[in-house]
């Protein structure tokens, strides 16, 4: 019988041995106290290393948060591209009355995960100091509402002169789940349509997220919006929920993942109210984009 060497003893400590070897090691341990001491060395490694857990509660630097955000969006986009069937299956509701719940259900797929992630991550936008501003928009647009901080109601044309051209372009041309990103001297802005809806009266509406990061600044500003296409073919912003994010994890490291916030629930309620209707499947959305969102 070969002696029990370090490798076998270590494998025993790590639960990596098959039953026969395990029995052999146990028999040797029973009669050899030096071997038991040696075993304690391997069995104790995890405890020796446990002070490393202290690093888990260190706040995430903003640069890592942004990288993490970008990777999540890209992975979802890729998974979505590879598996369109899954989305299609949850797309169109069979029964009309179920449209609202089907919308929620579709939202619980990849795109929902994306928006939950963007807004529900304990490291991201759910920082404790976050404040929501809710309202349809009049004076328009994320930058405006962030500057004034005042909620306004009404609607504003996205594509008009002086309007938000990047948003208009994203709404008109970008498939849901894909980000349109612009990087400039003042920072980075990323617009991601999340969902397209055909309302009961035949209009198209789209939910989107708008994430802006100032150049060289840890502050990220995000907004979720709903825009609908009007009779003249312009996208009108109907709802915008803006959120300021101070850029720190607010001590939320222990329990990953806490979706939910009052602002999101309110947003969903407003969308249900302003754009009741069926979500488009990927194929329908692609077709609508090709047609330039013409309804006839």
């Amino acid at each position: 019988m070969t002696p029990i060497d370090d490798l076998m003893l270590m494998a025993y400590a790590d639960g990596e041995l098959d039953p026969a070897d395990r029995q052999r090691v146990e028999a040797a341990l029973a009669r050899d106290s030096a071997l038991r001491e040696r075993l304690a060395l391997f069995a104790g490694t995890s405890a020796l290393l446990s002070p490393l857990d202290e690093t888990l509660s260190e706040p995430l630097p903003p640069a890592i948060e942004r990288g993490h955000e970008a990777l999540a969006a890209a992975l979802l986009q890729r998974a979505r591209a590879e598996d369109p069937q899954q989305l299609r299956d949850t797309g169109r509701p069979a029964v009309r009355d179920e449209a609202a719940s089907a919308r929620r259900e579709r939202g619980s797929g990849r795109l929902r995960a994306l928006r939950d992630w963007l807004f529900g991550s304990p490291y991201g936008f759910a920082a404790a100091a976050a404040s929501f501003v809710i309202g349809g928009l009049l004076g328009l647009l994320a930058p405006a509402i962030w500057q004034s901080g005042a909620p306004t109601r009404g609607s504003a044309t996205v594509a008009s002169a002086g309007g938000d051209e990047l948003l208009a372009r994203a709404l008109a041309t970008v498939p849901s789940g894909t980000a349109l990103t612009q990087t400039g001297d003042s920072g980075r802005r990323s617009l991601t349509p999340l969902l397209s809806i055909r309302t009961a009266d035949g209009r198209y509406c789209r939910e989107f997220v708008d994430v802006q990061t100032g150049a060289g600044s840890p502050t990220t500003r995000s907004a979720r919006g709903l825009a609908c296409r009007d009779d003249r073919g312009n996208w009108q912003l109907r709802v915008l929920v803006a959120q300021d994010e101070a850029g720190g994890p607010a001590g939320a490291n222990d329990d990953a993942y806490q979706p939910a916030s009052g602002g999101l629930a309110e947003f969903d309620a407003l969308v249900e109210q302003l754009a009741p209707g069926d979500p488009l499947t990927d194929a329908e959305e692609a077709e609508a984009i090709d047609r330039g969102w013409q309804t006839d």
Partner: protein
Amino acid sequence: MTRVPAIHDPDADLQRDLVALMPRLRRFARVLTGGRDEADDLVQAALERALTRLDQWQPGTRLDSWMFRITQNLWIDWLRSHEGREDRFVELDEAIDLAGADGRRDTEARLELQRVLDAISRLPPEQRAVMAMVSVESYSYREAAEALDIPIGTVMSRLARARVRLNELLGGAR
């Protein structure tokens, strides 16, 4: 209106995995580099590299293994390009960490951490990733071998040497 993720929603799983992974990835990087700033630089670079290699990740496989592997490979690249400079990095980072430890509410935990990091920094670089995966992340030998793309026998021999040495460095004082 409740917002409970669907139970078997693979995307919600992916989200949770990613959110939960960041602190673990930083801990892993810390084991490799020793210093916090360097570890964060490494994690950030690993995220960027992952973004350029999305096609290498198979949906449904472990995201953490993929990220650990990218991080480890990147760090090896860094070591090669900074040949002979590793010690200087470690000393610099230690100095920063110890200075920053003053006045922290849990200075003792910080000092314990520093003590462990000091010991790890005396292990050969190729042993650190293996030890972090098996003894910190509870990977099986096979999982670690696959993630790091090395033979399982290599995992075991590195691991055993690392643990014996670590015990010499840390065990006696306890």
